[in-house]
């Protein structure tokens, strides 16, 4: 079991948890958090290199590093792991954000230890989710990732945190209620009559035994279930409140990684296993996600709280992820995954910066701030870069992701899909509007508040955190083909065979 490298994505966080439990001083806590997340980052990068090596050497299984250890034998539940390019991309994303999140919460108060305990527990769930290919384990890790949010927001959050934390938790768990039903339903149709039922994604895919009728029932269940976490309209309202109240690192991890669980799950489970229904029902969800994209952007235009702006922007961007996934072609899906990566990194950057600004000015209302470029040029420049990434400047990650999505979506043979793609395209203008509005009000112009003049610029840990993220964003933006190839290889031709593309 421990010869499989993937298992360490769960083991390392667990070791970190144990390590944190015995920590006594704040220095030790930081050391554990940083060492652990560095180890995870290193592991994920090693995995990437090794994976590419294996692929280059001709490994053509849909998933590599597969391992399966029986867990609940009679129910055929296994701790099954395996990764393809998408999972690796997500693992890298998660580890980077965990790392930067640890730096961003360098000075978290109070109960630093508990904070990191919950944060690491959350990331255990995240990593476990991405390496799992067994529906049960996947779902379990999924929920593990959800619940620490409650305490993280409730205890360390700000503003109307009780309400937000409760709302976020309940809505996400509401989604997972549908999801659980969908997954169990899939299990019972996972194999043809007479063969043992299975939870294993790959086997279910290979069996192709979910009848079309059942797909019509199970697809919406799973898609909505994951879609809630992916902030699909109209189940997105947890996002603005939740993000607004969450502490910095949690916002980062949540918007950066956790919302990706939704998109990833929609792809990995709903569409991968039930392509026919996906093909037939896509239009319903396309309308919803299309609304998300435009609606989120418009809503962001008039918000005054920095985090609300960013949360609505996340609604818009994550809507684009689901939108692209539903287009059911390789290019659009590649774009979706790249958008996940890109949005994950840049929104984490945003939230990190907002947290840092908030930590200094103690307000997030853009009407009360201004001219920060003069006061804290470093943070302001980072904010501008994040903004550019968000509005899709070439050379940064947002552009390549969005373009891949648009090009891919527009390749759809159906006129309806293409028209909707154009609607979604409109979001790039609205995005520019709200991003520049914030940048203009917040960073440029005269200094609004005299007290802000004494504020200091970024500390070293803040710089580490932001620089890492910016470099990642730029790396994707400058060398997109590397990531596109990494992702593209993994789309199972069988899905497209089923839906006739």
């Amino acid at each position: 079991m421990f010869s499989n490298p993937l298992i360490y994505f769960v083991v390392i966080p667990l070791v970190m948890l144990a390590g944190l439990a015995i920590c006594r001083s704040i220095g030790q806590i930081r050391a554990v958090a940083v060492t652990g997340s560095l180890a995870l980052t290193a592991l994920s990068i090693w995995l990437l290199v090794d994976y590419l090596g294996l692929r280059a050497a001709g490994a053509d299984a849909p998933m590599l590093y597969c391992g399966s250890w029986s867990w609940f034998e009679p129910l055929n539940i296994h701790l099954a792991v395996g990764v393809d390019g998408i999972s690796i991309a997500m693992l890298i994303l998660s580890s980077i954000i965990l790392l930067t999140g640890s730096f961003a919460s360098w000075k978290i108060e109070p109960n630093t230890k508990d904070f990191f305990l919950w944060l690491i527990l959350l990331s255990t769930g995240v990593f476990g989710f991405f390496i799992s290919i067994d529906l049960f384990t996947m779902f379990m890790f999924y929920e593990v990732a959800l619940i620490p949010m409650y305490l993280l927001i409730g205890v360390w959050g700000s503003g109307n945190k009780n309400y937000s934390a409760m709302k976020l938790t309940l809505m996400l768990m509401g989604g997972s209620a549908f999801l659980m039903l969908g997954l169990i339903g899939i299990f019972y149709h996972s194999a043809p009559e007479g063969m043992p039922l299975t939870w294993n994604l790959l086997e279910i895919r290979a069996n192709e035994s979910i009848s079309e009728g059942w797909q019509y029932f199970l697809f919406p269940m799973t898609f909505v279930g994951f879609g809630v976490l992916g902030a699909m309209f109209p189940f997105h309202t947890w996002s603005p409140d939740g993000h607004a109240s969450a502490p910095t690192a949690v916002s980062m991890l949540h918007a950066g990684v956790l919302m990706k669980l939704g998109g990833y799950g929609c792809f990995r489970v709903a569409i991968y296993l039930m392509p026919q229904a996906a093909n037939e029902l896509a239009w319903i969800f396309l309308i919803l996600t299309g609304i998300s994209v435009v609606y989120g952007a418009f809503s962001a235009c008039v918000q005054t709280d920095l985090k609300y702006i960013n949360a609505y922007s996340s609604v818009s961007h994550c809507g684009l992820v689901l939108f692209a996934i539903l287009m059911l072609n390789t290019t659009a899906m590649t774009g979706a995954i790249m958008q996940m990566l890109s949005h994950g990194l840049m929104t984490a950057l945003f939230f990190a910066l907002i947290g840092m600004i908030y930590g200094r000015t103690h307000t997030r209302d853009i009407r009360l701030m201004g001219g920060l470029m003069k006061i804290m040029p470093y943070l302001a420049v980072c904010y501008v870069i994040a903004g550019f990434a968000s509005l899709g400047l070439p050379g940064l990650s947002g552009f390549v992701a969005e373009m891949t999505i648009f090009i891919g979506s527009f390749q759809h043979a159906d006129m309806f899909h293409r028209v909707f793609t154009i609607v979604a395209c409109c979001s790039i203008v609205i995005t520019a509007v709200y991003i520049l509005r914030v940048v203009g009000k917040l960073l440029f112009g005269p200094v609004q508040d005299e007290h802000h003049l004494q504020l200091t610029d970024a500390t070293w840990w803040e710089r580490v955190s932001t620089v890492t993220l910016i470099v990642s964003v730029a790396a994707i933006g400058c060398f997109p083909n590397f990531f596109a190839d990494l992702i593209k290889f993994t789309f199972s031709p069988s899905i497209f065979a089923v839906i006739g593309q």
Partner: protein
Amino acid sequence: MDYSQFLIMKQEIGLLAVFLIVFLADTFLPRREQGSIGVISCIFFAAFTVLGFVPGVVGEGMAFSDMYEATWPVINIKNILNVGVLIVMIQALRWADQDMVRIRRGEFYELLLVTLLGMYLMISARHFLLFVIGLETASLPLAAMVAFDKHRYESREAAVKYILTAVFSSAIFMMGISYVYALSGSLYFYDIAIAVWSESHSALLLCALAFVIAGIGFKLSLVPFHLWTADVYQGAPTPVTSYLSVISKGAAAFAFLAVLWQAFGTVYPQAWEWMLYALIILTITVGNLFAIRQKNMKRFLAFSSISQAGYIMLGIIAFNPMGMAALMFYVLVYIFSNLAAFGVIGAIENASGKVWMDDYKGLYRTNPRLAFTMMLAMFSLAGIPPFAGFFSKFFIFTGAIAQGTVAIYVLVLIALINTIISLYYYLLVVKAMFISQDDCVIAPFRSACSERFALWVCVAGILLLGVVSFVYNTLLEGTMYSF
């Protein structure tokens, strides 16, 4: 007349032996040695519990012409209950040492053991007369236990409410049995199963079923037979409440399963399935709706346990070995989770007398470990992974859905949506303890060794039961084997 058949009832005999030891100790120990009765009971009961798990000690078999059954699941549900009772006994040590209770502590342990014996009979009974006697043995002495805190008004009110409703419900139950008897001419489950085969559409059978379900539903506190629950849980002494909510409920659940599957299994497709659908939806929903508003921790847990009972019923409706195994597993997990919660409540009540949720505000700052344990219990009850409650909920849903009808999907969906409501109120407790910024009224204190030990056991159970798949695997394999 083969009296050697008694030897098949090893668990009952063992329990009776423990009971006698406690009884004799209570009677003959000198007054100053009386303090050790609790420990003695715990030790002997622990030995008994351990013996139950040793393979080969308890044999399977039927006795008294199929009046009594000790198959693998039956034996093991008893073992599971034993674990719970042991924890309750340990938790009760400190409470039983209080001035007002001390004088009656021998009786407390005796009554506890006797009611457990009643539950054993209920679980094993394959004959309605034995079942009724078991039921009464399990419920009547409990009334005395509910009334144990004589100095407290609530305890008395709870006892009256409990005994009167219990007797009323047993009257209804027996009325139902009389109709069953009219239809089948026998009180043996197996005979009934054969006889009611042809009676599926008889109004009398439905009436009988409704009465029988009401009678056992009373013990399980299914809505609308649940109204006593909250008042009694609130009024009873905390150890008794935990015993009522966990052991009594678990035993009743399994007995219910036995009755429905074995006596009425043949009327399955039509009758009780629909009744259970209605009851499950009502139970889960109403239980949750009431729980939302509760401010008293014990009352709160009462309603929570009502809705949990609804989930347990899903295992019965599954009507397959997975359902049975899931039910047993659920009961096991529920024992640990709920006892952890009650353990904390009891510890706090013993130390400070506080039982209101508002008193728990900021508990994490004064008593972090207790608060943490409570939180684990709440998460487990809400079904959050990686705690055991998640697994039990998942398995019980999986078991139920195996039926594959659309109706069961709808039912499970309703149940799942209700988990959100339940999560809400469980989180309210967590919120009070962890998030609330008020000054805590409960001063830091060190709980007694016994309490801590029991809590450690519960925490270990919550953390390990799910993750360590051995337990569930064994249960499922065992039930499949004996089904």
